[in-house]
């Protein structure tokens, strides 16, 4: 057989093709024409990069006790009269550089938020696929569970799960696995919406002829579900996921602000806001304001990106 008849597809070539398709796509077109979205994207990228390379990017390491000096405490931002150049956004009560704490805090916020969303998507999609594809009493039971959970506010569920986990686990292990507990709690509180979307997608795909064809061919049901149906329902799920990321970050911040989120040794933006809150009324406003502003900027940017993605992918709006 000549080379022409044996297409040999390497991974690199596939990726190259995908990039060319993207570059010519309507998606990219609508993206570059909306400055607000481009800005949101840049902000998100900046946060992610800063958080990933925190040790390289942050001017100080705020969590290394050796570098901390109580004499550095309570410096206001550098542009004010009493500020100090080496602490751009000021310092907190223990002499930690606020800018550095924000960078390290974003890292935790992003990790927890991202992991929680991935967890809810995986759980929700699996449940939704099974429910929509198999139908019958499995569908009825799973969806009633989802419905019941949806009547309770997500945050309360997260608090509940978190509280149960804390009391159930031995106190020594608490610190180490606290972060996993938080991820689990937030993840569990959000799966029903992905399940619903996946379910309706599965229900509409399963009556399509390509599924019937796969059955005639003899493809086992679980392969049909994962290799045929799943790729066709991922679109709306991923869009929901980007908005869900913003929600997860906010949820984590709320839990940490309330003191039941990540442990204080690995503070997130929410923890920082809580710490700063104590000093708000004694005049050291910068300790809470800047972490709060950072949180708002991050969540807003991710939210805007999610909205744009949903509109750009909606064929009816094109």
């Amino acid at each position: 057989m000549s080379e022409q008849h044996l297409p040999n597809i390497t991974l690199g070539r596939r990726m190259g093709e995908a990039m060319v398709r993207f570059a010519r796509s309507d998606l990219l077109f609508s993206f570059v024409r909306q400055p607000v979205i481009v800005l949101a994207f840049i902000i998100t990228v900046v946060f992610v990069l800063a958080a990933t390379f925190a040790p390289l990017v942050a001017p100080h390491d705020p969590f290394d006790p050796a570098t901390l000096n109580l004499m550095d405490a309570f410096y206001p931002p550098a542009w004010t009269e009493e500020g100090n150049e080496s602490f751009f956004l000021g310092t907190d009560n223990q002499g930690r550089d606020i800018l550095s704490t924000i960078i390290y805090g974003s890292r935790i916020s992003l990790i927890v938020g991202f992991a929680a969303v991935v967890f809810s998507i995986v759980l929700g999609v699996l449940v939704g696929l099974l429910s929509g594809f198999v139908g019958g009493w499995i569908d009825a039971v799973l969806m009633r569970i989802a419905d019941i959970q949806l009547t309770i506010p997500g945050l309360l569920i997260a608090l509940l799960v978190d509280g149960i986990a804390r009391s159930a686990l031995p106190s020594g292990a608490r610190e180490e696995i606290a972060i996993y507990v938080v991820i689990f709690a937030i993840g569990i509180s959000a799966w029903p919406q992905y399940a619903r979307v996946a379910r309706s997608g599965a229900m509409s795909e399963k009556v399509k002829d390509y599924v019937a064809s796969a059955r005639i061919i003899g493809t086992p049901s679980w392969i049909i579900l994962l290799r045929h149906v799943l790729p066709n329902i991922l679109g709306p799920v991923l869009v929901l996921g980007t908005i869900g990321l913003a929600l997860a970050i906010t949820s984590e911040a709320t839990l940490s602000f309330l003191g039941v989120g990540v442990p204080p040794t690995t503070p997130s933006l929410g923890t920082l806001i809580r710490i700063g809150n104590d000093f708000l009324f004694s005049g050291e406003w910068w300790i809470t304001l800047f972490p709060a502003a950072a949180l708002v900027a991050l969540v807003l940017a991710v939210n805007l990106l999610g909205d744009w993605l949903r509109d750009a992918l909606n064929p009816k709006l094109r």
Partner: protein
Amino acid sequence: MSDALLQVKNLSKTFDLTENPWLTTATGGKRVLLPAVDGVSFEIPKGKTFGLVGESGSGKSTVARMCVGLLQPSGGEIGFAGKRVTSPGGGRGIGRGRLQMIFQDPFASVNPRWRVVDIIREAMRAKNLSSRDQIARAGALLDQVGLTAADGEKFPHEFSGGQRQRISIARALASEPEFLVCDEPTSALDVSVQAQILNLMKELQNELGLTYLFISHDLAVVSHVSDVVGVMYLGRLVEIAPKAKLFEAPQHPYTRMLLEAIPRLDLKERHQESVVGEVANPLNPPKGCHYHPRCPFADKRCKKDDPKLRGTDGMAVACHGVEEARLPAWKDPTLQPA
């Protein structure tokens, strides 16, 4: 008939459309049942094409899906080469891939996220071929249906409707089937594309010795492709005849009405007095002969008794009027003076 590849005996299918089945039976309410197929029997000899024609609510698509095992019959049975068809693609004793299906909607019948070569390769599951051989075979099949091996790299949305139907055909052929159920394969295509696809299917039948069950609502298309034609109305088979006989001398009043109703290109004035009414609600078909409300020859017996399919020599009709020999001879409407 011993050389019949497919035998359908007394096939029935009733769909339960009740909204909350458990609740309804618990409270003693009435179930909503749709008798989509009611006692259908026919045979298809090897290498021939059986055309099944009918309007909406006739049940022809349901029959198609049962023949290939996608739906379980409520009654009756389907035999393929002597073995019962019990599950999608055949069932116990019937080798994988001997029965295949081509669908109506070229856009929904292939997975838009898969490459064409993978779509075709999936159908080769039963044959233990290496990846290399599978890809090579897929390329050969694409050539056979009028595309090129290089098209295997592309995604379905890069093809037109007619080309996607060719991909469907290539996929169906990948398992070396003997029997192909074609459910309105050209209804969604333009006339010139339809001609290409019908010609291709004829070619393949001659080359590969395939047997077709061809479903359509379009009598002209069915007349072109079939050897024998079966006419269905509201779940029942009302007439079976070899193609030429059916169109020269239709016996059942419904078949006659269809022939009068089809728009013709010969443009002569013709009488269409029997073209009245519409297909009744399939959920509640008329008692007795389903066609009696629209039939110019219906009498008291027609309103009470179900007519049975009676006939010999490959021709059969389910009509009291025919049985009682009280129907006038049919005049071809196109031979009427203007």
